[in-house]
């Protein structure tokens, strides 16, 4: 009897003691999800790491399984959405700390404390550089002669362009940087221009921004910009894909130069080699801070999970991976070595000095000044109003176009063409300022019906742009279509021949095409966009606004 009880007891005890080992214990199945919004230029590093992290099913100290959802986004765009409350991530990791004081100042107008408290830890580092094709850099005296923002500005504003250096076949000097209202590197580029214009390396003030020298200097440099763009990573892709005739140089991060050179050395890119210029006046660091937000939507549990992810990203294997991809690791135990070397177009002993980060008010001042001196755009919007656009589609197209028009300045030129059986020019190419209300009213009244004369419409718009567009402006066409061409007189090969202008380089008119809905002729729209160095987007009524907004960042 006794023995039977004790046997039973032993079995029960064994079972109980085995439970935790098998993981069957109450409480372990709980999951905590955190969202990370980060600057797109570290996507190649972060995305696979987050996947591996999720697969490892790591737990918080309280035992909840951590799940990470990470989304790349322009640094400044993200800041504005977070402050507005439309984006509520647990962690914000922009490309640099530059914009944090600005975000904090905006946040404080509605909250008692800062959005980002103290000095957040940095994940990886990379200096801001001017990426330029190696033969062009050599003509400028690289690597022996130190070059800076002022040299680039002088070249950008010289009417002879590369001709002044004996290379007229390279055409004008074409510079690119991203949109300073959306992307960190674009903002850095315009702050550096302001410093160079003021002849300073620190202590930039609002007074400096009012001086005629600073204004005319920025105006000059911005005149050589071929177009802006939403994110630095995307900008680098275009430069390395379309080559030297498209863009001579662009403001990028060092890691993007290393990544391209690694690709080229591995035979995955047939472009010329590219090198990094570290501006002699000084530059800024992209330092990828990891900020766990001090926002009401971040719970204590999410905070603990975010701390764990941070620890993982700073661990040696992940930091070594960052070095392989061309970043300078935040972990100082890791020496700077290959691929940070001359073979990959960069110099790890550079930069020699930095420009001082201005206070939030001055940063906002630089952004405001840039909006005044930026290159204007001439844009022709082509809208498919054939019968198939009825209902939700035409409504979404109208609203999105109205919002797009509101993103344009008074100085910008706008033409709108509606195409179905006929081509109707709703408004011809002329400055928006004098006709804004009238145009908005007309767009609100657009209705659908008839066939799709896509080729004729694009052909006509292209002719209009050639005739009436200002070559000193950014010139672009946006084509929205939801079906195949059914009634054009012009045929596709002829159209493509007419609009193919890649040999003219980055300043030629660009066509952006939006394939709207399932029936759109995606392939044709892609060909049209690529013939001009533009871009094709897939869209539906839900994301159309977003796509127009993204196209607007080119201007």
């Amino acid at each position, binding site marked *: 009897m006794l023995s039977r009880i004790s046997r039973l007891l032993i079995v029960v*005890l064994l079972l109980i*003691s085995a439970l935790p080992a098998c993981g069957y214990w109450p409480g372990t199945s709980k999951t905590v999800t955190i969202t990370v919004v980060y600057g797109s230029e570290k996507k190649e590093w972060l995305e696979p790491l987050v996947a591996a992290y999720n697969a490892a099913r790591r737990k918080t100290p309280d035992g909840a399984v951590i799940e990470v959802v990470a989304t790349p986004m322009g640094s400044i765009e993200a800041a504005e959405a977070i402050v507005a409350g439309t984006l509520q991530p647990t962690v914000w990791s922009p490309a640099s700390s530059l914009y944090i004081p600005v975000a904090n100042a905006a946040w404080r107008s509605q909250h008692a404390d800062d959005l980002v408290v*103290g*000095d957040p*830890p*940095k994940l990886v*580092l990379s*200096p801001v550089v001017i990426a330029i094709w190696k033969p062009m850099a050599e003509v400028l005296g690289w690597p022996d002669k*130190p070059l800076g923002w002022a040299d680039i500005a002088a070249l950008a504003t010289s009417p002879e362009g590369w001709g002044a250096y004996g290379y007229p076949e390279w055409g004008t000097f074409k510079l690119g940087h991203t949109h300073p209202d959306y992307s960190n590197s674009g903002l850095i580029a315009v702050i550096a221009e302001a410093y160079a214009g003021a002849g300073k*390396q*620190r202590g930039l003030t609002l007074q400096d921004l009012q001086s005629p020298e600073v204004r005319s200097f920025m105006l000059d440099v911005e005149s050589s910009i071929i177009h802006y763009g939403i994110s630095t990573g995307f900008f680098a892709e275009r430069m390395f894909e379309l080559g030297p005739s498209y863009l001579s140089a662009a403001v990028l991060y060092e890691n993007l130069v290393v990544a391209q050179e690694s690709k080229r050395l591995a035979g995955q890119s047939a472009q010329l080699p590219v090198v990094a210029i570290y501006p*002699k*006046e*000084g*530059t800024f*660091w992209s*330092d990828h801070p990891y900020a766990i937000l001090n926002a009401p939507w971040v719970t204590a549990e999410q905070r603990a999970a975010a701390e764990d992810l941070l620890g993982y990203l700073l661990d040696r294997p992940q930091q070594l991976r960052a070095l392989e991809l061309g970043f*300078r690791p*935040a972990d*100082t*135990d*890791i*020496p*700077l070595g290959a691929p940070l070397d001359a073979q990959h177009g960069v110099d790890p*002993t*550079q*930069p*020699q*000095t*930095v420009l*001082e*980060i201005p*206070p939030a008010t001055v940063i906002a001042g630089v952004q405001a000044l840039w909006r005044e001196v930026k290159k204007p755009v001439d844009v022709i919007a082509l809208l498919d109003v054939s019968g198939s656009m009825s209902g939700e589609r035409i409504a979404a197209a109208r609203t999105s176009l109205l919002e797009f028009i509101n993103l344009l300045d008074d100085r910008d030129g706008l033409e709108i063409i509606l195409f179905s059986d006929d081509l109707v020019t709703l408004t011809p190419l002329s400055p928006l300022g004098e006709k804004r209300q009238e145009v908005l009213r007309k767009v609100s009244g657009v209705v659908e019906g008839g066939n799709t004369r896509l080729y004729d419409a694009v052909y006509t718009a292209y002719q209009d742009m050639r005739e009436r567009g200002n070559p000193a402006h950014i010139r672009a066409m946006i084509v929205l279509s939801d079906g195949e061409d059914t009634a054009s007189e012009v045929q596709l090969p002829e159209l493509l021949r007419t609009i193919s202008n890649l040999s003219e380089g980055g300043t030629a008119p660009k066509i952006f095409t939006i394939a709207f809905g399932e029936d759109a002729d995606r392939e044709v729209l892609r060909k049209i966009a690529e013939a001009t160095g533009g871009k094709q987007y897939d869209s539906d009524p839900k994301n159309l606004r977003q796509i127009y907004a993204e196209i607007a960042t080119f201007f």
Partner: protein
Amino acid sequence: MPTPRLNKLIFLVYMLMTAGVFIAALASPAVRAVAYAPLRDLLLPPPRPIVVSVLYSTEKAAWLEEAVARFQATQPQVDGRPIAIQLARSGSREIYLAVLDGSAKPDIISPASTLQIHILQDLSAGQFGTPVVNAADRQTCRQVLRSPLVLVAWEERAQVLWGDQRAGDLWLQLQTALTDPGGWQKYGRPEWGYIKFGHTNPLKSNSGFQTILLMTYSYFGKTSGLTSADILGDEDYQAWFTAFEGAISRFGESTGTYMQEIVAYGPSMYDMVAVYEATAIEYMDRAVGRYGALRVYYPPATSMSDHPFCILQADWVTPEKARAAQMFLDYLTTPELQQLALLEHGFRPVEPGVPLEQPGSPFNRYAANGLRVDLPPEVETPPGDVLNTLLDFWARNIQR
């Protein structure tokens, strides 16, 4: 009595005793050790550990974490209950502010300097009636590591600025170099831009506080007797000090993370910074792997971080916690731990039996980088009201 019955009786008595031990063990952890081990671990709840929480300043993190691991490995106990040390980091000033406002209830605090213990002692006496620490009690409040404030510079740049033989008052020279609008151009290196110096925020970090104190002493050409009237009544000093601090772009939050950033970014960001000697030593090799050698300079008079560990005299520190805390404190000053602090982490031991110059010592290894055993004199720590005057002046005129 037949044998089977005797056996049964013995078995029964044994079972009762065993059960008794187990029941007694539930009430007193000291008895637990007597209980039959395999069954004990299976049946009895593990004895609750005595948790000793330590709130300490960041720069000694690496040594302290290692110290705790070694201490735990000795399986220390009080009354049969294991001791668990729980570490939390903070800035030196935040440590005493957190104790004062009740947001932290640590058993041991260890700011970077006895300076903060004095401040806490004064302020807590005023606030609670009795002080929560007693700096004079060598048993419960003990200096454990020492490290002076130094200037650490990228060697290549320091060479250009000062050459091999730097002479004269370090702070006065530095102020002149920093405030010259020509920057490095004056030294023939325009590509280095303006001269960049930095120290931590004195309101948050002890090394920043020490730096502005040493600057101020240097300006007045003395090492003791600093008064509030010196700071508030001398416009020339104020102009000199404001220009000095105005040339600093960014003040770090804590000494350890600040030094980490300096080595991560390299000389483009900072030419030189004021940190602890131990912090500089910690980064010597890493700096070489990143941007080159560092060089250490000693100011004309120094201020020492002495890393006191003090057991709080507060109602949450129970007698058994106090005993456990005392054991931990005693362990930190053993020659083994002092040796570890010197060889692996660059601190100067308080234990006289551990010499600075010995095989493997950083004071031998980095002698060529300017590290030296003999120190300049220490400045006198001014009274609390003078320290507060200096901090207030900084907060009103410099902080941004």
